[in-house]
């Protein structure tokens, strides 16, 4: 009996050894072309990081962003007030696909509150400026550069293990997609490029969800 067990054990060990040996050839990597990959990284990252002059220094964009934020906060505040009259409940509608419970203030625990406000506010302002600009052609390197920075923060948040709320992750994934589209805008963008981004934002309900997140973040500061 003992001999049988030993014999089986040896067989298991031999089998495990064979497995490990065979596993080494699993997706055996070739030598990487490090220079080609580096060239792509340089082009995509370092070229996008240009000296900053804040695009939101433009007073019109600041006004537009503030209005959007105000409207967003107002809509959410209105939506949370209990209606005294049943007919009012019909008039007040939440933005489609918005799960308010999903965008609580601690939804971005990877950032402290001021950082989270800054990130959300800048993202709203950037996307709002893109909406106000949608019909015009332009050459806006700064917008692309700022979008690249916000994209980087978005990916940081997606990578953070503390960003666990699936709905917040969904919003961040949509922002990642939209910001990536902004980053890829050609130097001489045309109205069609911007329209495609705008369509993506509308299909995914990005702005209402983002404004809800902003409103919750601000109310958490109170």
């Amino acid at each position: 009996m003992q001999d049988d067990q030993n014999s089986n054990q040896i067989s298991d060990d031999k089998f495990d050894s064979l497995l490990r040996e065979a596993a080494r050839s699993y997706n055996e990597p070739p030598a990487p072309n490090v220079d080609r990959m580096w060239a792509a990284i340089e082009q995509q990252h370092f070229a996008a990081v240009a000296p900053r002059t804040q695009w939101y220094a433009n007073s019109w964009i600041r006004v537009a962003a503030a209005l959007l934020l105000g409207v967003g906060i107002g809509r959410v505040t209105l939506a949370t007030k209990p209606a005294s009259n049943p007919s009012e409940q019909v008039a007040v509608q939440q933005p489609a696909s918005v799960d308010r419970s999903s965008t609580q203030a601690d939804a971005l625990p990877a950032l402290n509150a001021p950082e989270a406000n800054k990130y959300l506010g800048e993202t709203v302002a950037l996307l709002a400026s893109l909406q106000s600009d949608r019909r015009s052609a332009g050459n806006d390197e700064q917008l692309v550069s700022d979008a690249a920075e916000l994209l980087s923060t978005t990916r940081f948040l997606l990578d953070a293990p503390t960003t666990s709320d699936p709905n917040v992750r969904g919003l961040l994934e949509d922002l990642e997609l939209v910001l990536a589209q902004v980053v890829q805008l050609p130097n001489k963008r045309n109205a069609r490029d911007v329209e495609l981004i705008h369509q993506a934002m509308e299909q995914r309900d990005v702005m209402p969800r983002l404004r809800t997140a902003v409103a919750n973040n601000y109310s958490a500061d109170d």
Partner: protein
Amino acid sequence: MTHPETSVLILDPAPRRAEKALVARVLEGDRIAARELYDAHVSRVFRLAFRLCGDEAHAAELVQESFIRVFGQLARFRGDSALSTWVHRVTLSVVANARRRDKKHEREIDFDSADPIADDAVRDADPDLKESLHAAITALPEIYRTTFVMHDIEGYTHTEIAAATGVAVGTSKGRLFIARGQLRKMLAPFRKED
């Protein structure tokens, strides 16, 4: 099993100081320092990405995306862990996100219900142990496959895997145990031939 090419992710204090200095140079805009940082990690990152995706062009894209994220977020790196740990964590996140986006992987085999399907697939697919093993590894759920590939194929320690995947060392060991057990089960028909 020995892996002479594997360097440790948890570095001694002296290299950690040199690493912080390198990071500081990169943050000041020193492109040569950025390339140094890249050169220090790219080989292992590429090996891991390729092992996990199995396609050279796709692995190169994953590596590029990983380093773009690393450079983009470098200012947030506080030096609490080794830079290589952080680079690997970013890489695994990029690989996982890419797999989620890839529709081919949307219907991954559920680990708990994998046995009968996988056993048949392995038995019928190919009599060759190596090819069957490769198919079985690919069929493992992501967390087990990553742990198995990192430990048994690429030679990372459980400490390194735990740091890069954000779990406890015990969890990493448990995942490897389960992965090996699953592979043994999937390849049981070959054992009988021994």
